[in-house]
């Protein structure tokens, strides 16, 4: 299809802009990806080639928060929530890669104030 963007290019990484040190909060990640299972057919009846996100990670200032591989039971446009607590301000960075080699990433900063 013409003009179709690369899967996994659009995403939202939602964090509160300001938190207290040590206070738990949610990091929410929503990725626009079809998560093709390889079982679906297009309008012509041809199998749509499998294309799942095969790796996904979240880090904070280079420190790993979460990594996952082979996410074949995830829905299309996966939505993930991580509960974290921070000691100091910094930047979250999420990255992912699908089976066709399309890579995506997004980052967001959180400012931490003394508890």
């Amino acid at each position: 299809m013409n003009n179709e963007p690369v899967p996994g290019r659009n995403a939202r990484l939602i964090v509160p802009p300001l938190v207290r040190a040590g206070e738990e909060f949610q990091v929410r990640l929503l990725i626009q990806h079809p998560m093709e299972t390889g079982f679906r057919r297009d309008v012509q009846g041809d199998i749509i080639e499998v294309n799942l996100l095969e790796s996904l990670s979240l880090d904070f200032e280079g420190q790993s928060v979460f990594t996952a591989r082979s996410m074949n039971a995830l829905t299309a446009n996966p939505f993930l929530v991580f509960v974290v607590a921070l000691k100091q301000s910094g930047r979250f960075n999420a990255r992912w890669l699908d089976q066709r080699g399309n890579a995506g990433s997004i980052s967001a900063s959180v400012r931490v104030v003394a508890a």
Partner: protein
Amino acid sequence: MSPHKYGRALIASLLAATAATGAHSQAATSQLFIAKSAVRSGSTFTSATIQAQQKDDDLNPGMLWVDQGRELFAKDCTNCHADAKGLATKLPRLHTDGSVVTLEKQIHHCQTERVKKPAYAMEGQPLLALTTYLAFSSRGLAQQVPANITQSAAWQRAHNEFTRVQGKLDFNCRACHDQLYGKRVRNQNISQGYGVGYPAYRVEWQMLGSLNRRLRACFFGMETVVPAATDPILADLEFYLVWRAQGLPIEAPAVRR
């Protein structure tokens, strides 16, 4: 769409209860079945989980399309449209030739005649992104309805279609959306059938889709001839649905099952 999804699993009792409902003719003054005070948005018929997902923009997957639409709009459209707010309330509208201009058609027109670029494909992600962004920018506003809409040929065509009994199950649109709302069919709650939530993210589609696509799904469900996406009857119906909604505000991107 896979045929077995809809299948023939329609509950028999529901069928018996609804056979041949299209024949009622309303007083000429008002063809509306549902009193204005009883009008309810489609969201109120969905589960609490789905409602929560729609209400919170951080959880609503439709916002991915809104983000992308905002970018496309800034790139190609802001020269002439400083503000996106309210644009979507003007559509669908009547063309001077009597046909109905949908939001998609208006965007295609602006793209080819004004931006001078090829139009985005129907149901493709860029067009859905633009329509969703425009509908989102008009959230809370009602779509405009021409004062004498019921005198237009487009309204009449859509009204005939809405009330015409068709398909293997002898249904018309009215049977479900004017009379059986609140009941269940094929494991879904039937709503009053308004378009104000669209483009909407449907869990069944695993993506966002247009009202045009939703309407085709209803034709499919009625086991009748499914009009092509470009069939003008679908545009007529979109126009008619705005009138039926009696001022219900736009709530796109809605989340639906």
